[in-house]
Structure formats: structure tokens, C-alpha cells
């Protein structure tokens, strides 16, 4: 079983250059699909293996850990790997039609190659147990995602991508500096090794600086509140498939790395005495409120959902900041649930864009009649976003609320509740426009000539409804998602994966 681990990284690594070299869009799509399917199966097998609490160690090239790079897989990153690969598979299936319309034909093979590289980077970040290796993968995924976003159909995509590039590079630099400081203090790059000898150097001021540098770098990648400004533009301008994939995976992986660093690199007792938990709580709470507030004001569905992502990331940050096991469970389970929910919603938004050539709520009034299935997906996904019982979103809200009350942190409770009321406002805004406002004649000049405005996307609809069904399924049967989250939170609180 252990030997399969490395395949998760190797498969996309081999396939990406192939895709770029063959330069045929059908082959490119087929290869991406194959990569997605293969990695998904492997990730599922891994998760099944570790969900009970077992930890897999894989030494890359046979080098012993403190010197060589090792991959450490426990319940937490197996779950992350499953999320990433599942969404890679789904978005490739989803994107078959929409990508061909949104991306220029000559770039299609490069698009899919870059997509596989993002997948590679995200998987690598999830699996590696070496902090410098993590930085390398972070850069791989970031650089290729800049390229993906820049391939959006509008010229603004270039600006959005450039902004993301600047922000992302700054974040990566911060992260790298942090690693450098940590290396200077500890003399090692292996996460477990850093953690195990932490008492020897924890008094150094360098260490706390390293912690904060790493934190700020990751917060930027995760779009935590004051550092979120790249996200709405990037998600709005990227091709639909990229939005689906990045929205449901990339920020989640960054949150995962944040958790990994906070629990497995720096001991929890170390940072919880600092101001850090309150800092995280503040950032999370403000993020929830600010993101929801901005979401209410948006007119474009994609942008609205992007701001809602900022708010939902606030939930995850708060879960970490609460600094108890329930809170961590909530964060991990919300990573999973939010990925499903946002994936479904962005897919629906992508289908709307594909067929109507607009995502402006203003121009989509009354679309519920022409696209009943797509708008139905909006309703159910939206309910899950709000956290209505019976949907996946409720599970996370329930645990987060419990965690906040365990700490008697009423500020968090209040902002959580206000944020859910605001969530209902922005979700209702979509539903109202789609179903109950008077019908708007679609502006035909927005549709390029020779294209049918209402064209079916059977495969995409199928993917979208798969996720919608998952929203409900994981709201009722929580075995898989919650067990993994609980095992992960327990092992994190027990202090590192057993060697």
C-alpha cells in the first residue's frame, strides 16, 4: 500500500508534460480524466487505510527521514487528498464543454497540462512531510494556477491573474522566509524532526518570527480575512472549470497546511500562549462578517460566491483559533463540506454562464423557468451554504457552535449567527432573482453568433447533481466525513503522528 503513495504525485508529474507535448485537445482531456480518476482511486484507498488512525510513512528514494524527503499520510491529509482528487476528476468531467468555449483552442492542451500541474502541486502539499518540499509544491501549484486564471475569456482575467501572482508570490516569499528562519533555528527541514526537538530552541526569538512568517504566507494563500483581496477577482475571471477546482481545493489545502504547521511543526502549547488564537479568531470573525456583507452586495453570481468563500474560510479559521478538539473537527469537516457545496454552486454558475453568457443576477431574472435543473442546484447548494439542517453545511455549523460554546466565546457565537443570517440573505438574493423576479429578455448581443443560448450540458449537469446529492448525503450520513475529521483532530491534539 505504501508504495502507491508516491503515485499520487508521480502520475500527474508524468502526464502533464505529455499533455503539453502531444498538443491535441481530445488527448489532453482524456489524459486529465485518467489522471483524475487514477489519483482519486488511490486517494480513496489511502483514506480507507488510515481512517482508523494508522499513519503511513513513505521514504522518497529510500533516504532515511531527517535527511531524505518523506511522505506522511494520516487521516487528515488523506481526507484532503480525497477532496483534491475528487474535485480534479469532477471538474475535468464538468469542464469538457465549458472549457472549449471559454479557452482559446490553441491553448487547450496547455490548459489541461497546467491543470494537472495544479493537481500535482496540491497533492504534493497535502502529502509531504518535509517543509521545504511543501514550499516547492506550493510554488508549483501557485504558478500553474496563475496561468489557468489568465486563460479566462475576458481581458480582466489577465489583471486578476496578475494580482493573484503578486499576492501569491508575496505569500510564498513569506512562507519561504519563515522556513529559512526555522531551518536556521532547528537545522532540519523534516516536520516531525523540527517538532520533536522543539524544546531545544523554542526560546529563540527567531522561532516566533518564523511562525508568524509562515502563518502570514499561508493566510495569504488561504485568503484569510485581511489578505483575501486576490480571491474574488481571481474566481470571477477564471474559466468556470478552474473556478470550480480552485474554489473547492486550493484554499482548503492552504488551510490544511496551516493546521499541519500549527500542530505538527510548532507544538500547540507553544503558540496557544501567544496572542495567536485571538488573532485567528478576530480574523475569522471579521472575515465571516465582511465576506457575507460583500456577498450581499454583489450582482454577479460568481463574485457573490467568491465573497461567500471568504466568509466560509472565516469559519475554518475560527475553528482553528478556538483551539479545542471540537473546533478543529469543525474546521476539517467544513473543509470537506464547503468543498462540496461551493463546488456544486460554482458548477451551477458555470452552467449558467455557458448557456446564458452572463452571470449577472440582473440579467438572469426568471431563469428558473428555462433552466429548472441548474437553478434547483442553486437552491440546494445555497441551503447547504447557509447550514440548513439536513445538508452538509449544518454539520460544520453545529460543531463550530459547540466548539465556540465550549470556550464560552460568545463573540464567536454571535458572529457565527449573524453570518448565517447574512448567508441566507445572499442565497435568497440568488433564488429570488432566478425564480420570482419578472422574466428578463436575455440580451442576444451577448451571445456570440452561431451559438445556441440554451445548449444542454448533460455531463456537467450530472457532475453538479452528484455534488448536490453529496451535499444532502453528507448532511444525513456523516460517517465518512466526520470520522476522518475526528480521527484527524484527535491525532493532532495528541501531538503529531506516531512514528
Amino acid at each position, binding site marked *: 500500500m505504501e508504495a502507491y503513495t508516491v503515485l499520487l504525485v508521480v502520475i500527474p508529474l508524468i502526464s502533464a508534460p505529455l499533455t503539453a507535448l502531444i498538443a491535441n485537445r481530445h488527448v489532453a482531456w482524456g489524459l486529465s480524466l485518467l489522471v483524475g480518476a487514477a489519483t482519486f482511486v488511490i486517494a480513496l484507498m489511502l483514506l480507507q487505510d488510515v481512517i482508523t488512525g494508522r499513519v503511513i510513512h513513505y521514504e522518497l528514494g529510500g533516504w532515511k527521514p531527517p535527511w531524505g524527503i518523506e511522505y506522511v499520510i494520516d487521516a487528515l491529509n488523506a481526507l484532503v487528498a480525497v477532496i483534491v482528487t475528487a474535485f480534479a476528476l469532477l471538474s475535468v468531467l464538468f469542464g469538457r464543454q465549458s472549457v472549449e468555449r471559454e479557452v482559446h483552442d490553441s491553448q487547450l492542451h496547455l490548459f489541461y497540462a497546467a491543470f494537472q500541474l495544479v493537481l500535482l502541486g496540491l497533492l504534493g502539499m497535502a502529502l509531504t512531510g518535509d517543509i521545504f518540499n511543501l514550499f516547492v509544491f506550493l510554488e508549483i501549484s501557485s504558478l500553474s494556477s496563475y496561468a489557468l486564471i489568465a486563460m479566462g475569456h475576458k481581458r480582466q482575467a489577465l*489583471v486578476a491573474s*496578475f*494580482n493573484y501572482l*503578486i*499576492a501569491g508570490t*508575496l505569500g510564498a516569499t513569506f512562507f519561504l522566509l519563515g522556513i529559512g528562519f526555522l531551518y536556521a533555528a532547528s537545522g532540519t527541514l523534516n516536520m516531525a524532526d523540527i517538532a520533536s526537538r522543539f524544546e531545544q530552541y523554542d526560546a529563540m*526569538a527567531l522561532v*516566533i*518570527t518564523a511562525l*508568524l512568517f509562515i502563518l*502570514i504566507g499561508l493566510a495569504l494563500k488561504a485568503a484569510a480575512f*485581511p*489578505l483575501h*483581496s486576490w480571491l474574488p477577482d481571481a474566481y470571477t475571471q477564471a474559466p468556470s472549470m478552474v473556478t470550480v477546482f480552485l474554489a473547492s481545493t486550493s484554499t482548503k489545502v492552504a488551510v490544511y497546511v496551516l493546521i499541519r504547521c500549527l500542530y505538527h511543526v510548532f507544538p500547540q502549547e507553544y503558540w496557544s500562549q*501567544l*496572542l*495567536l488564537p485571538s*488573532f485567528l479568531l478576530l480574523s475569522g470573525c471579521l472575515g465571516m462578517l465582511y465576506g457575507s456583507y460583500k456577498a450581499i452586495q454583489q450582482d454577479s453570481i460568481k463574485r457573490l460566491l467568491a465573497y461567500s468563500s471568504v466568509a466560509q474560510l472565516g469559519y475554518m479559521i475560527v475553528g482553528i483559533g478556538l483551539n479545542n478538539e471540537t473546533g478543529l473537527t469543525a474546521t476539517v469537516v467544513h473543509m470537506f463540506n464547503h468543498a462540496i457545496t461551493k463546488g456544486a454552486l460554482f458548477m451551477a454558475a458555470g452552467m449558467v454562464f455557458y448557456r446564458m453568457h452572463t452571470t449577472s443576477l440582473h440579467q438572469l431574472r426568471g431563469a428558473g423557468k428555462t433552466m429548472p435543473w441548474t437553478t434547483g442546484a442553486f437552491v440546494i447548494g445555497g*441551503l447547504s451554504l*447557509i447550514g*440548513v*439542517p*439536513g445538508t452538509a453545511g449544518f*454539520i460544520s*455549523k*453545529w*460543531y463550530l*457552535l*459547540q466548539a465556540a*460554546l*465550549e470556550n464560552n466565546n460568545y463573540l464567536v*457565537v454571535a458572529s457565527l*449567527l449573524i453570518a*448565517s*443570517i447574512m448567508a*441566507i*440573505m445572499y442565497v*435568497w438574493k440568488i433564488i*429570488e432573482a432566478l*425564480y*420570482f*423576479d419578472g422574466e428578463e429578455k436575455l440580451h442576444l448581443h451577448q451571445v456570440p453568433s452561431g451559438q445556441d443560448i440554451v445548449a444542454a450540458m448533460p455531463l456537467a449537469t450530472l457532475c453538479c447533481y452528484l455534488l448536490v446529492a453529496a451535499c444532502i448525503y453528507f448532511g*444525513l450520513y*456523516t460517517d465518512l466525513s*466526520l470520522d476522518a475529521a475526528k480521527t484527524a483532530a484527535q491525532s493532532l491534539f495528541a501531538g503529531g503522528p506516531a512514528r
Partner: protein
Amino acid sequence: MWIANLPPFVVFFVFALFAPVLKGRLRALLLLAPVWGGLNLAMTAADSGGVTWQFTDLILDLYYVDRLSLLFGYLFHIAAFIALIYSLHVKDSVQQVSGLLYAGSALGAVFAGDMLTVFIFWELLAVTSAFLIWARRTPEAIRAANRYVVIQVLSGVLMLTGVVMLYQQTGTLRLAYIGLEGTAAWLIFIALGIKCAFPFFHTWLTDAYPLATPTGTLYLSAFTTKVAIYLLARTFPGEPLLIYIGAAMTCFPIFYAVIENDLRKVLAYSLINQLGFMVCGIGVGTALALNGAVAHAFNDVIFKGLLFMTMGAVLTRVGHVNGSDLGGLYKTMPRTTVFCLVGAASISAFPLFSGFVSKSMVMAALLEQDQLIVWLMLLFASAGVFHHAGIKIPFFAFFAHDSGLRPKEAPLNMQLAMAIGAILCIAIGVHPEWLYGLLPWQNDYSPYDMTHTLTQLQLLFFSALAFVWLNKQGLYPPELRSVNIDVEWFYRRLLPASGNRVVNTLVNARSAFRQNVRIIADQFARRSTPMPTGTVTILTRRMAWVFIALMLLVIGSLLL
């Protein structure tokens, strides 16, 4: 044929799945949901219950049966049956689906054995019912529905917080007596209070109910508030505060109802007034009072539903229900008029009509407890009910001056639904023991004794006299085309106005700040190289600020 241990909401949810497919006459199949569900409940209730659902690490009790939940269970089946007949002609499948889901959620909440299940259905009630208002599809209705849903969800989140806190304090989620002590209990109390339309929390009701579709209002009037009453009776019986809240609820709507022109809004106010009697009964908390409260809830669903149905029929045929522009409809809608009169007689508690047998229980219980002042308030309220619901509604709609409107009689299915409601009103009034047999607590009350009947008749005749006299003298508030706003003023006028002011102030402050910054920046710029512009700089500057903040944090952490 009968399935034991089938939670009643399942039936409704399953039928809701099929509702969009059934067109035309096939829609009558939907009636099977309440009929089969109700019979199933009646046949298997004795050995049902204890259906659980493993939800994360909690075990939810989805089907908890005792006499209290059973009474509300039967009631909701009857209400859903009537409402489905009434809406058979409706082609809009949104209404059919959400109506069924809504009724199902109410049943789920009533048969819930623990607080979390209650909360789950509480949220579903809010979401599903909002669609019944939206379905009217007028701009006012949409806005009202948006306000409605926000308030309902507010109630939901308050309840969720209360439930989680209670769970952490007591370690159990069992739905049982809570008692008004501690933050958790207060949160739950307020959450229930919002749905139960306590004074100052009532505005969503009078705001949204009159704007729903004709059939939607019927559903709405039956379920949301009654679920809240049921939960109050379970969790806060005998809470003295409820007596006073209830008394206030019976009195204040009267004044608004009398001046209101939209007749469905009049009924919405009178709904709050009737809820007041129930809340009062729960507050007293003796077996008689609680019996009275739930019996009144039972009757209220039917007679208030009947009145809403008659107004819905008028709305369907005429297009509006403004008292000022109606009148003389009895000529072409005779049957609707008769049904309306039956409903009016029931709500005014005429002897031999259903309102009489339950309202008197609450009143008698108050006297037993020597709550004389509250008793007098309720007596005043009874007279007021007769005025605005018993006389005003039928008088201005069907009699009064002839408006010249000659609408057709209501559709056949509406008439059938109204007939069922009217028959039930009279049947319960004549044979109160049928209802009394279902009551959850020990009951030996008999409504038809000499003093009680006489008191009620005197009260009714004198208030009728007052109405006639006031009307002849021209003192009775005339029906004016006006919009009356009560407590909603706070969030429909004050909040936007003050919100705008705050936003304006902030915007002004921001522009002033920016101007100052620009001046300072200009001065700097004159001294040094010109300020670079563009996204890169902005981002870098932002990062620099974050960096400085972080360094401050580092220093702070090191010092502390």
C-alpha cells in the same frame, strides 16, 4: 396497509416529491398524503414511537408519541387535508410542493423527541413556508417574504444556540420541561416567542401573511404558530410571565385590527389575538388551562383557517380584499358568505360553535387562579374579537354598502374545503366531548352550564349593540385605503433611515480621510520621488502594513 413506526412527516415528504409530476385531476392523489397518513397515525399510534436516527454522535428521536403530540398530529393532518382540497385548482407546483413540505415539517417538529430534531424541523418550517409567500410573485410579497425569512432564521439560530448551550449544560437533548432559567432557556424562549408572535416579535406575521397567496395563507395560519404553541406547552408550562405576555397579545392587536383595511391583515391580527388565549393558558399551567390552550389551538386552526379560506376565495374572485372596496358580495357568493358567518361565529365563541368550548376553558382556569385582571383583559379581548373578526370581516366583505362587484361563487374545491371546515366548527361546538376525549390532560370540564353560556351571550350581544350604535353614529373607524405600520416601523423605517445615515456619515468620513491622506501624500510627493501607482504598489503597501502589524504582534508576544 398500516405501517407502524413510520414518522408522519415521511409521508408528506414523499408525496412532495411526486407533486411536481402530478398535473390536472391527478393532483387529487395528493390528498392521499393526509388521509393515509392520518389513518396510519390513528391505527398505529398505540405501538409507535422511538424511531431514531444516528446523527454524528447523537441519537435523534424522530418519532415520539404521547397524547399531546398526538393531538397536534391529528390536527395537522386535518389542516393539511383541508388546505390541499382548497388548493387543488392551483397549477403552480411550487405551492403544492412547499405546502406539503411545510405541513410535513410541522408534523416532524410535533413528533420530535429531542431538541435538535425540533430545531431541524424548525428551520425547515421557515424555509418551506417562505416559498408560499414568494409564490404570490408581486414585488411587495417578495420583499415581505425576504423580511419574513430573515426573522424566521433569526429565530432558528437563537434556538440552535440555546439548544447547544442546554446540551452542554445538561448533557441531554431530551425535549422536556425547561423552565425559564439561564441564558440557554431564555434563548429558546425568545426563539419560540418569535414564532409565536409575542408582542414586538409579531410583525413578521402581520407583514407576511396578508401578502401570501390565497392558499399559502391558509397553510401559514395553520402550522408555524401552532408548532410554537405546542413547544411552549412542552417546555415552558406554568411560566407566570406567559400569562402577561398572553394577555398583552390578546389586547393590542384589536386596535390595529379595527383600523386595518386589508381584511386578511385583520385576520392576521386576530390570529395573534387568539394565540394570546393559548399563551395565557400555557402560562397558567394547570391541567384545565393547558387543556384549554391546546383545545383552542385545535379549534383556532380550523376556524381561522375557515376565515382565511373565505377571504382567499374573495381574493381569488375579486383580486383584492380591501374592506373599503368590497361589500354586497353575498348576492353572488352566498355559500362563501354562510361559511364566513360560521367561521365568524366560531371565532367569536358563540355557544354551539367551536370557539366557545375551548376559550371558556382558558377563562375558567384564570378565574380558578384568581387572575382577575388578566381575566378582564381576556374578556375585553373576547368582545374585541367579536368586533373585528366576528362582525367586521363578514360585514364589510359580504354586506355593508353594495360595491357593485358581482364575482362568481368560489371554485368548487374551495367550497368543499370551506364546508369541511364549517362542519368541523359546528360539530365540535355541539359535541365538545369529541375534542375533549383527545385532550392530553385529565379533563372533566363542561362548557354548557347556565352562567357561562349566559355571560358569553350577554357579552356578544352587547358588543354587537356597540358596533351597530357606533356604526350608526359614524364613530366606528371607517375603512380607509391606508397602510398601517406598527412595530415594524423599527426595521422598515427607523433602521433603513438610521442605517443610511450611518453609511452616509461613514462615507463622508472616508472621503474626508482620503482627502487628508492625499494632501499629506502630495506633500510627501513634492519632497521625494512621485508616488508610484497601480495594483502592484497597492498590494505591496498592503503587505507592508500587514508585516508591520505582525511585527508589532511579535514584539507584543515577546513582551507579554
